[in-house]
């Protein structure tokens, strides 16, 4: 069974920049987590997104031309910032893996994948 783990967090929450104190420790946490997924055979894919400042949204409405606007599809305090796509036997395992994600603040949404065209 595959699960998508969506990481939502407050983009204004201070995180260390590359080279700043604490950056290496932060990265070490994420790398260790990734390794845990790989070693456990859970890894499929993952990505960290650029901030919503860089987002562009195309909105479609039936009967109207699509409009292209600057920004994410909805302005909220917490924004989608990245994801993991993992393999797990059931929701309990997926939740346990999601709980181990070193996200300091925000919400972690776990959703079962219904269909993935490039799945083996």
């Amino acid at each position, binding site marked *: *069974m595959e699960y998508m783990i969506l990481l939502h967090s407050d983009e204004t929450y201070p995180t260390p920049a590359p080279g700043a104190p604490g950056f290496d420790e932060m990265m070490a946490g994420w790398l260790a987590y990734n390794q845990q997924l790989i070693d456990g055979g859970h890894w499929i894919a993952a990505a960290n997104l650029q901030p919503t400042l860089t987002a562009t949204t195309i909105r479609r409405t039936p009967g109207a031309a699509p409009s292209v606007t600057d920004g994410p599809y909805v302005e909220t305090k917490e924004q989608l910032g990245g994801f993991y796509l993992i393999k797990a*036997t*059931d*929701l*309990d395992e997926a939740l346990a893996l999601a709980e181990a994600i070193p996200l300091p603040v925000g919400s972690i949404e*776990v*959703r*079962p994948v*219904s269909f993935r065209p490039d799945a083996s």
Partner: protein
Amino acid sequence: MTLPPVAGRRPADLQAALIELAREHSGRVLALLARQFNDLDLADESVQDGLLEAARSWPRQGIPENPAGWLMTVARNKAVDRLRRAASARRRTLAAAPDLVAGSAVLDGSDSAGGTVDERIAGGEQMQVGGRDGDEDQLRLMLLCCHPALDRDSQVALTLRLVGGLTTPEIASAFLIPAATLAQRIVRAKRKIRDARIPLRIPDRLTERVDAILGVLYLIFNEGYLSRTDNAQIIRLDLADQAIRLTQLLYRLLPENSETGGLLALQVFHRARLGGRVDSAGELVLLADQDRSLWDVRMIEQANVILAGAVQRMQPGPYQLQAIIAAQHANAPSQESTDWPAIAVLYQQLSAMTESPVVALNRAVAVAMADGPLAGRALLDQLTGLERYHLFHAARGELQLQAGNPGAARDCFTTARALTENPAERQHLDRRVAVCDRFR
């Protein structure tokens, strides 16, 4: 289909036997089938089929010697029928449109629950209703119904329906919601269990998950005990009794969990006092005014034993503390001889454990009983977050009345009355307003 041997019983027992079959045995059978076939929906449908079959055939054939075993056999056969029908439908689709079906996880031979149909049917052959495995299955089912990935309302509905064997209309009427709403809630929850694959498994962090079950059972009991619905309705009592029955089940499955014993004792103490709680006119009677001879002494004794067993394990928790408080009341011969200072201390401990403003309110009331209305009011005045809670205003009213301020007390009782929908509580508050008016 071959049925187990049948032995006749008096037909007058039939209705009771059918209810007993649903309440006492269907949850256990469902739990077994759900594990064996790894499919909650299939197990539920098949048990429902089995209960319908009992209602159809028992009036003619009589009540079987072993109703649980009968239901197991019938429900398992129904499950096998359903699986075979689904498999042949799949084969027909496959034969008709192989290109469409190839590679689709939804339609190939091994469906989402895992294993081929024959494997799953074979897995269902060696089942027995009794024994340690059956207990574990029931615990798994309870854990599943109270899984944190389901919302609280769904947890309550699933627990009563799948573990407790209540029908959807029974649950809906107990909670005063339309049956269609409840049915939809159950369907949605079952769909999430299936599609997100919430497992039937005993988790590593069991205590945490058992706490969720206790929370659900506590809520069901409170709904029965302090119902928003009409006191005249039997269903209210029934709900309290269902909660006790399910808590007893959990207590039997997990005897080493002290909080389960605590919750069971708490419920039984309250249940024992229900006889004195509402008078013949349907009005709520305050603890102080209750006729304690109406309390069920045998039940209080049972609760004392359960509580003693739980407390012995030295793993304190909020349910045990509440049960100890309930024990203080239940074992006191009168309001005056109640150990209020001890109760105030217990509430202080509970307050520290739960950080609930309602508990803090109870503590203030206990302090008022122990040290006088002024001491109680000082604590009440510090509370926030209870502005919409009728008992907060009722308690303030009582303390104002004791302190000799009937005018202020009347305002409090009027506010409290506007905030509750329970008819017995409303009547009681009307009487308190009348008392204030007499003093003025």
